[in-house]
């Protein structure tokens, strides 16, 4: 169930190159958010809202954390908002990561760049529910790395950078070949990364979070379609996803 809500900006800070962490307060959203869901944020008078994942959620303070990368006019403008400003948000939206898994299982989180944020909320939630967490996080380079300490608190965490300026050099899939043991994997990141991940981890149970340019964000406009093996022949990323079982979709 989503609503249109005003969220107050509690804090905003640059945490990596062109990457901003913003904490927003709203009781309804923080009460209803689950890992993998996103917010559809109105920025100024932009025609389209911008989808941004929920990166953390605090039920006590009613705070939601989002992390976003400045990649265009909308995110640049969002980065200029000040503490105390309000955001007009639709949320929480979508079907997130399945979290009803057997205690003591081990879950591998694989994040790439600005795909990392939803995995943090997920990892925290799973860990609180007795799941073991391992994480492999890929970034372009040292300047782009964020939330490493946060993930280390959840479990074993490997950082990979494309240019080798920090952690391991290469792609997230390079470290996976070392045969990390896990029961399920959960991933979010650029499509090429997800594609090679799925092929490297063939046979493993996995869930991926996908992105597509969105119109309505609520399932009405059919902008965010993904071909799928269901009766309709497609899924909507905004309302059927953004998280999908790797078995059910073709990317």
């Amino acid at each position, binding site marked *: *169930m*989503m609503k*249109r809500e005003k969220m107050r900006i509690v804090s905003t800070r640059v945490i990596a190159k062109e990457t901003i962490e913003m904490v927003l307060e709203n009781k309804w959203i923080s009460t209803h958010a689950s890992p993998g869901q996103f917010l559809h944020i*109105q920025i100024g*008078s*932009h*025609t*389209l*809202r911008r989808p941004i994942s929920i990166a953390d959620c605090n039920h006590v303070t009613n705070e939601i954390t989002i992390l976003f990368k400045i990649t265009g006019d*909308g995110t640049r403008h969002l980065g200029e908002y000040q503490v105390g400003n309000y955001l007009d948000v*639709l949320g929480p939206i979508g079907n997130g990561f399945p979290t009803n898994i057997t205690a003591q299982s081990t879950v591998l989180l694989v994040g790439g760049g600005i795909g990392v944020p939803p995995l943090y909320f997920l990892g925290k939630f799973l860990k609180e529910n007795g799941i073991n967490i391992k994480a492999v996080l890929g970034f372009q380079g040292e300047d782009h790395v964020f939330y490493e300490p946060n993930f280390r608190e959840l479990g074993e965490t490997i950082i990979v950078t494309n240019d080798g300026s920090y952690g391991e050099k290469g792609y997230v899939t390079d470290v996976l070949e070392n045969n990390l043991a896990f029961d399920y994997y959960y991933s979010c990141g650029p499509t090429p990364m997800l594609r090679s991940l799925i092929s490297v981890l063939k046979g493993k149970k996995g869930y991926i979070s996908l992105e*597509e*340019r*969105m*119109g*309505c*964000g*609520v*399932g*009405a*406009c*059919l*902008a*965010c*379609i*993904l*071909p799928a093996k269901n009766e*309709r*022949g*497609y899924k909507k990323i905004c*309302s059927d996803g953004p998280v999908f079982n790797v078995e059910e979709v073709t990317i």
Partner: protein
Amino acid sequence: MTNLAIELPGLSLKNPVMPASGCFGFGREYATFYNLNKLGAVIMKAATMQERLGNPTPRVAETASGMLNAIGLQNPGVTKIIETEVPFLSQFNTNIIANIAGSSLEEYVEVARAFNETDQVHALELNISCPNVKEGGLQFGTDPLMAARVTEAVKKSTNLPVYVKLSPNVSDIVQIAKAVEAAGADGLSMINTLTGMQIHLPSRRPLIANKTGGLSGPAIKPIAIRMIYEVSSQVNIPIIGMGGIQRAEDVLEFLLAGASAVAIGTANFQNPFICADIIDDLPRVLKQYGFNSVREAIGKGIVA
């Protein structure tokens, strides 16, 4: 009390506001935000004979005060729409308008006929203007003879009033409007989107996978107003106006230009409550500019 009601062929509207085709699905999603009883009517997403899966993604892009879309008439096919979507919408105390599309004259006729089998649809909107189907959709809308032919054929095969939705991508909109009026159209619906494109600099390709898309939103409002103004004094059938409506003041501007009712598309994406909000605000705006009813305002901006 300000009177918002308006009578159009086949439609007894409690107010002149309806969501535009393609921007509101079949109402299910927006029904979770507010009660659709509120609406004058709902225009459904385009129906074709067979199911269509539409265009590849990306299907939308943002532009200055507007957006491009190339959904490509994705829909489950008219039979499924009549079986599952029309019954959902007919729970609400509002009018249902079916937007019909096709790749050939025959398909238009077949889809129109299919809607004869339900008595829950109140009017057809004949979409001869969708720029996102290659097979002929656009030609129907830009050639007055073709537009008249499809209008005539659909009129013959339906018992419902037909509103022909015009394309703005034409040299002479009045000519097309007159042609479809002469062919029996009960009303006009204008405007559909303008064909546009955006090139994505990093990939050096059109951003929309279909290359071109339809431009909608406030950017096109001046073109919609101009076309409605030009057409409304040249035809004797009512116009459902649309293109960039964002607030009640815009609705009044469309009424003054000669529209009898309005549809709201893109603005639903910014504010899911937009149709309801505008309906609530319309009496204030009509009053502020000296009108006691919607009817009174229609065409009042037209000067000799």
